C-alpha cells in the first residue's frame, strides 16, 4: 500500500492548478521495422499505467516504470504503453483512468492502493478493458490485484543485519503503524534473530512516507542509541545516507540504492514488477486472463534482495543465500510458528504458517522488538 502525504497532495494540486504537470507521456514511436511484405500488421495492444509518484523517485514508482519498460522490451511493437505519473489518489484518478480507456488502452495498471475505488468504478463501465490494481483487494470480472510479498525482502535484510551487527541493536524507520509495515518490522527482526538470537530491534515512527530531513533525523536517533544496521520502509535514500555519514550499515528499499552509500549499503530490497506485467499482458493476448489475487515474492522474482557488496563476509552471504533458498522452497513462510509477540504471548503455534488473515491484520511486535505498537492511522 502506498499513499501520498497531504503535503504532497497539496503540491500536486498546485502543480495541476498551474497546469505544469500530469500530462500524458508516450514513449516515442519505434522506427518502423523494414516490413518484408505489405502484410497488414495487427494493431498493438495498448497498455496504460497510472503512477502515484514521479518516475524519477528512485523508489516505488521508478520500480514500476522499470517493469513497464521490461514489458515493452519483451513484446516490442505488439504492445504500446502509456503512463501518467504523479496522479493524485482519490476522485482525480478516475478521470485519468477514464481518459486512458478513451485513448484505447485495453489493459490498465494502477500502481497505488488509493486508486482502488476509481478502478472499480471504471471497470464496471468498461467490461472490454482489463484492470490490474497493485496492492489492492477489490475484484470484479475484469478487475484483479497484484502485490509483492515485500516482507520476504525484509526477512533477508534481517538475516544480513543479524550477521553484520556488532552492537546487537538494529533499527527500523517506520512510516505508519499499519499491518504492511509491521510485517516488515517483524520479518526484519525474525530474520535477524534466526541467525543471531541476541539481536534487539528499535523502531522509530515518523508518520510520513517521504520527508527526507525527518527520515535522516529518525535514522540519526537510532544510531545515537546504538543501532548499527538500519532498515526503513520510507521512500527516500535519507536513512541509507545517514548511515553512511555515521559509518553504520543500512539497506536500500524499493529499488537498488547502492549508489547512494557505497560503504553503508548491505543490499537493496528491490521490487521487480516486469515479470508480472509480462504475465498479465500475456494473459490478455492469449485470452487466459482470469480474476486472481497475485502475491509474488522471492520465488517468482518480484521481490529481490540485490547488490550485496563484496566486503560482506562469506558467512553472512551464505546465510542470506540459505534463507533465500528456504523462501523459494516455502513462499511466504517468514511467519511460521512458533512466534511470540514481545510481551511473550504466543501468536502462532509451532508448525503453523501465518495465513493471509494473520498477515493482513498484524498489529503486534514479535519478540525482540522494543516498545509497543503505537495507536496509529
Amino acid at each position, binding site marked *: 500500500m502506498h499513499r501520498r*502525504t497531504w*503535503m*504532497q497532495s*497539496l*503540491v*500536486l494540486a*498546485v*502543480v495541476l*492548478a*498551474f497546469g*505544469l*504537470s500530469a500530462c500524458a507521456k508516450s514513449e516515442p514511436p519505434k522506427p518502423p521495422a523494414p516490413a518484408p511484405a505489405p502484410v497488414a500488421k495487427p494493431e498493438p495492444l495498448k497498455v496504460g499505467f497510472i503512477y502515484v509518484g*514521479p518516475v*524519477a*523517485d*528512485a523508489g516505488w514508482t*521508478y520500480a514500476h516504470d522499470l517493469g513497464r519498460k521490461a514489458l515493452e522490451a519483451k513484446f516490442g511493437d505488439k504492445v504500446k504503453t502509456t503512463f501518467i505519473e504523479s496522479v493524485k489518489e482519490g476522485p482525480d484518478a478516475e478521470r485519468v483512468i477514464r481518459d486512458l480507456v478513451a485513448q484505447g488502452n485495453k489493459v490498465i495498471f494502477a500502481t497505488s492502493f488509493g486508486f482502488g475505488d476509481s478502478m472499480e468504478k471504471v471497470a464496471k463501465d468498461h467490461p472490454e478493458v482489463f484492470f490490474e490494481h497493485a496492492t489492492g483487494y477489490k475484484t470484479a470480472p475484469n478487475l484483479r490485484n497484484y502485490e509483492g510479498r515485500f516482507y520476504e525482502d525484509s526477512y533477508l535484510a534481517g538475516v544480513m543485519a543479524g550477521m553484520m551487527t556488532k552492537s546487537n541493536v538494529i*533499527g527500523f524507520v517506520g512510516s505508519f503503524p499499519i499491518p504492511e509495515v509491521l510485517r516488515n518490522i517483524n520479518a526484519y527482526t525474525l530474520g535477524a534473530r534466526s541467525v543471531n538470537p541476541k539481536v534487539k530491534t*528499535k*523502531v*522509530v*515512527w*515518523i*508518520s*510520513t512516507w*517521504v*520527508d*527526507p*530531513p*525527518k*527520515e*535522516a*533525523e*529518525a535514522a*540519526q*536517533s*537510532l544510531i*545515537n*542509541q546504538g*543501532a548499527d544496521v538500519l532498515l526503513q520502509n520510507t*521512500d*527516500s*535514500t*535519507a536513512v541509507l*545516507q545517514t548511515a*553512511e*555519514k555515521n559509518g553504520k550499515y543500512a539497506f536500500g528499499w524499493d529499488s537498488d540504492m547502492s*549508489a*547512494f552509500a557505497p560503504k553503508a549499503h548491505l543490499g537493496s530490497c528491490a521490487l521487480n514488477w516486469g515479470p508480472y506485467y509480462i504475465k498479465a499482458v500475456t494473459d490478455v493476448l492469449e485470452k487466459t486472463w482470469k480474476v486472481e489475487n497475485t502475491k509474488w515474492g522471492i520465488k517468482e522474482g518480484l521481490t529481490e534482495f540485490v547488490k550485496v557488496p563484496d566486503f560482506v563476509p562469506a558467512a553472512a552471504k551464505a546465510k542470506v543465500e540459505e534463507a533465500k533458498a528456504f523462501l523459494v522452497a516455502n513462499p511466504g513462510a517468514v511467519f511460521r510458528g512458533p512466534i511470540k509477540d514481545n510481551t511473550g504471548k504466543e501468536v502462532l503455534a509451532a508448525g503453523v504458517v501465518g495465513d493471509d488473515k494473520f498477515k493482513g491484520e498484524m498489529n503486534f511486535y514479535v519478540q525482540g522488538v*522494543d*516498545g*509497543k505498537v*503505537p*495507536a*496509529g492511522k
Partner: protein
Amino acid sequence: MNEIALLIAATLAAGTPLALAGLGLLVNERAGVVNLGAEGMMAIAAVTGFAAAFLTGSEWVGFAAGAVAGAAAASIFGWLALWLYTNQYATGLALSLFGAGFSAFVGTGFVGKNLERTAVAGIPGLRDLPFLGPALFRQHALVYLAIAIMAAIAWFFYRTRAGLVLRSVGESPESAHALGYPVRSIRMAAVLAGGALCGVSGAYLSIVYAPMWVEGMIAGRGWIALALTVFATWRPARVLLGAYLFGGVTMLQLHLQGRGVQVPLQFMSMLPYLSTVVVLVLISRDPLWIRLNMPASLGKTFHPGS
C-alpha cells in the same frame, strides 16, 4: 552520557534550518512585512541549491545559489506586496503554493540524484574534547554560521543606525516616510534579505541535512520558522533558542521512541504550533510586552503619499 551528547548534537543540526529561516523572516517582519511564502521560498531554494551543488560539486556554491533563488522568489512577493499593494498575507500564501509546485516542476531531473559528500570537519582542537566535542564541535559550518548571523542581526538591529531605520519602518512607516526615508525600498531590502536567509535554510536541508531533493521535502518547516518569529516575540536570540528548542523536541521525541517510551506521534508534530499559540496567548496578556516587541505596522500595506 554519550547518548546525551549525541542528542545535543542532533538538536543543533535539526534547529539550524529553522533558525536560518526564522532569522530571515524576523528581518522582514521587523520592517513590517509578513511573508507567508517561507515554505515556497525554501522549496525553490532547496531545488536550486541542490542543482547547483550537484552540477558544480561545491556545497558553498549550492548555498549561494539557494540564497539567490530565495531572494528572487522573495522579490516577486516584494514587488506585488510593496509596489502593487496586494495583501501581504494572500500574496505570501500564493508564494508558498507556487513555490511548492514550481520546485516540483523544475526539480524532476534532480530527484534521485546523489551528491558527493564532503566530510564535516568540525572545529579542530575542540572536536576531540570529551562530551563537549561530540555534543557541540563536530557540526557543519552552517550551524556555527547561523549563530554568527543571529549575532550580526542583533547587532544590526540594536547597535546601528540602519537597523534603527529598519525597525522604525516596521513601527511607523508614515513617520519614516515623513522623515524622508524610502520606506518601500527599505522594506524591499528586508524582504530580499529574508528570502536569501530562507534560501540558505532550504539549501541546507537539501544539500547537507537530507541530503537530496524530492518534492515536498520542506514539509512544513517554513511554517514552523514563521511560528518561531512570533514564539520569539521578534527577538533574534530568542529565534535561535526557539529553533533549538523545536529541534530538540523533534529529536527527543525520536529518541524516546527508540527507547520504547510511548509518545503520541501526532501530539509531537503539533507541538511547535501549540507552543506558538500558547506564547501568543501569554504575550497578549501583557500589552506592554507586545508593544515593545511586535512591529506596530506588521502586515499593513503602506501607501506613500496617502
